[in-house]
């Protein structure tokens, strides 16, 4: 099975986010970068498919050279090769523009299945996956918390509000990953894995290699843009309910506060 994982590098979830002086972007210089957690789930699911059906796992990413480290991490987990679209003419592209570029890379690889995150934990747009599927004219199944394939089709479970849906598609198809660490339990890279990863193929590509240009994918094509950023309102300082009360006294005081002051119970 020829499997592609779309992987995005995002700032560490511990990161303190500061707005840059331009008011439109965030300060990136002190950030630590990680694989988007949902994309790590995708790598894990891809490796399990490969273990069952054989084949190759290719990691595809758009981003600058710092992304090489994240791709190598995925290769060390067990993926076979990487393609990095390192092309800054894509900067300023919106989700659709970037999806066009990713769809072109996918098309060239002719995979049976594409796995990607349901969302990236930075801009949290939750759109690339379904967009890539639409551009390819493929079905997509979203927010998988389980994934199974017989080699010619794929079945997933997806949680919805107050329930669960089981969906099925014939291949080729795209699946976006939901769930959490507890669901996917992504493996760590082993030491031998890390050694091997250094020798695995990683191609550097430009938009032009796919017959695309910034006019179609980059800033000139963007339909939506961020005009300004702001910090969320600070929460008002709260208070500790104590006043020398015992447990029952505090319980009564909290109920009173929630009922009379906050009026939420």
């Amino acid at each position, binding site marked *: 099975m020829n499997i592609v994982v779309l992987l995005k590098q995002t700032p560490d979830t511990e990161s303190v986010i500061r707005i840059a002086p331009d008011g439109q972007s965030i300060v990136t210089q002190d950030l630590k970068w990680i694989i988007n957690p949902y994309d790590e789930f995708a790598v894990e699911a891809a490796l399990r498919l490969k273990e069952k059906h054989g084949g190759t796992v290719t990691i595809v990413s758009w981003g600058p050279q710092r992304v090489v480290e994240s791709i190598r991490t995925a290769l060390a987990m067990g993926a076979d090769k990487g393609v990095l679209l390192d092309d800054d003419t894509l900067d300023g592209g919106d*989700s659709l523009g970037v999806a066009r570029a990713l769809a072109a890379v996918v098309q060239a690889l002719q995979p049976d299945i594409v796995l990607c995150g349901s969302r990236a934990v*930075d801009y949290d747009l939750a759109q690339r996956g379904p967009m890539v599927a639409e551009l390819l004219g493929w079905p997509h199944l979203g927010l998988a918390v389980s994934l199974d394939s017989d080699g010619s089709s794929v079945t997933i479970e997806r949680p919805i509000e107050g329930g669960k849906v089981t969906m099925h598609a014939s291949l080729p198809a795209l699946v976006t990953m939901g*769930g959490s660490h507890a669901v996917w339990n992504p493996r760590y890279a082993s030491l031998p894995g890390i050694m091997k990863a250094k020798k695995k193929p990683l191609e550097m590509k430009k938009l032009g290699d796919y017959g695309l240009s910034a006019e179609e994918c980059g800033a000139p094509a963007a339909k*939506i843009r961020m005009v300004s950023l702001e910090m*969320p309102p600070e929460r008002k300082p709260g208070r500790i309910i104590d006043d020398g009360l015992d447990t029952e006294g505090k319980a009564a005081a*909290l109920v009173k506060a*929630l009922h009379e002051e906050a009026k939420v119970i």
Partner: protein
Amino acid sequence: MADCVVSVAEFRAGNFRRVSFEVASEARKVADALNVPLYGIAVGAGVGDKAKELGWYGVDKVFVADDPALEHYVPELYVPVIASIIERWNPAAVLLPASVDGKDLSARLAARLQTGLAQDCIQVVCDGGAVKAKRPIFAGKCLAWCEWAQGALPMISCRPNVMDCKDADATRQADVEKVAVDLPEARSKVLGVELDTTGKVELTEAEIIVSGGRGMKAAENFVILEQLAKELGAAVGASRAAVDAGWRPHSDQVGQTGKVVNPNLYIAVGISGAIQHLAGMGSSKYIVAVNKDPEAPIFTKADYGIVEDLFKFIPAFTEEVRKLKSTC
């Protein structure tokens, strides 16, 4: 010239989901600001009978795609059906629910319509005829205002439980037009749906949430939170530590890699307040923290803090809530 604003509704198991009315209410405001009518789109099996309800929340005309094949959300079917309705018009904006299905639908629909989508928005404004939307990024650590390029159709999905919902006005009548449904070939389908019938409150739609963390120490101890939740009519959530330990299902996880929730009241019990957890519940209207460690970071975000052993405090608190409920 734009000739309408469009709001897309979500229909499941015979009823519109509440977020549909929130979206219609918000879209009504945009339509009023731009002085154009509000068109609704309702897709589903048997949705025709309910379509008029959208009128109660401000929709002027509802376009209905009612077909047994549309009983469940399948992106390959829903996207072309909805796109073909939208393409009849020249809308100033399309508003959709940022529910689980709504976000998925919005993304694919934006690619079909070749436009820009602002996902999971918390505010929409019309600034001199131009539509702008605000959305959280970096799990709510920052907020971004989005604008659309000249001539691009603004697509906006609205976070549930955030936008004001009008009171239903059952005297308000909407025109209803049935649309001939031309279903495309699809390679995907729904095999089964399991809906929870125990009356469990969904986290993302709950008014009150009681969440437990590693401090709960064991799966069986969550009984005390469930009892409290029952008294309050609340949903029960969890931190990642509690989910990773196998005490709670992953669907209960609140945070950056779990659910983002916006209740009126969030009660964090035995949760330290890690940045990834705060990301999921930091915009709750009121936060209560119960923790035996006075230095726990959760107290910096809490409106009311209780420094106590949770195993002593929660039963006492539940008892006080019970007393309150029996007097009112």
